[in-house]
């Protein structure tokens, strides 16, 4: 019963606009209740930020070699996993399992990472 109530509340928030009233404190609160869309969006944006940061950093250093793509993937996946499993402490079964959560925004983040890496590398070092 409690769960349906919270879902209803969230859906109402969502209909009010894309950016529902959002508190940053919630991002670190293990007690907060999450709805699937909100959690998906948060994970998506965390992945994009990590991708952009790693891409700019890899390009600025610069590091070369395909191995760094896998290092980026490991870091990004580790951060996402650590975030939802250790900081939010949510039950992944409620949100479709590890695969669904770790896959959120993955492809977009890989392309964003490659774009940032290639651009900075080509512009800064030649």
């Amino acid at each position, binding site marked *: 019963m409690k769960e349906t109530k919270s*879902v209803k509340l969230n859906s109402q928030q969502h209909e009010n606009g894309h950016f529902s009233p959002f508190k940053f404190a919630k991002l670190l609160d293990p007690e907060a209740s999450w709805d699937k869309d909100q959690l998906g969006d948060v994970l998506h944006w965390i992945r994009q930020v990590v991708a952009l940061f790693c891409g700019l950093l890899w390009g600025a250093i610069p590091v070369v070699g395909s191995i760094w793509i896998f290092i980026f993937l490991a870091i990004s996946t580790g951060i996402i996993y650590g975030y939802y499993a250790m900081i939010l402490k949510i039950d992944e079964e409620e949100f479709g399992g590890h695969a669904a959560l770790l896959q959120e925004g993955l492809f977009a983040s890989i392309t964003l990472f490659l774009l940032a890496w290639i651009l900075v*590398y080509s512009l800064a070092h030649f």
Partner: protein
Amino acid sequence: MATPQFLSSFKYSDSLKVVAISVCTAIFCEAISWVLIYRTNSYKSLKSSIDKAAKKLETMKTDQNPNKLSTKKSKTKKIDRVETSLKESSRDLSLFKFKSGAVVALVLIVVFGLLNSLFEGKVVAKLPFKPIGIVMKMSHRGLQGEDSTDCSMVFLYFLCSISIRTNLQKFLGFSPPRGAAGAGLFPMPDPKTS
């Protein structure tokens, strides 16, 4: 083309032009989609009905108690019904999107042709890794020489269009609703079925 002074100091300044053109294209395409789809009322009602059905389905599935065997059968029937209506709405949604998809595809083809004529055979960027297989084919398309780290416009444009478009759609709230079946690139495995 008149190139600003600071741009000409870079050897690979063409890469910035490709990125700028694809950013503009992405914004233009989203504007077209907004005019043709997202601002219409039928799209809004369809999307909200999909969201509602998906949420209903989810709560029904999570509420399922394995001990109550007697109610299980009627519940499965109900779930089936909601699932069918969800599928129908998703189908309607994809039909709806087809219209603007055609226009957007046309714009993308025209822009691609324009970029092709601008940067034909030019090395627009340098890859920091050695690509293999299909990536290699894409990144070295139309380029002379054996250096596999040379990057052609095609690969850069591909990266730009995917990353910028996906994030722009997400930012504007235009991405397909999660509940719609087959909306994602990969189908999500359902852990409840095992």
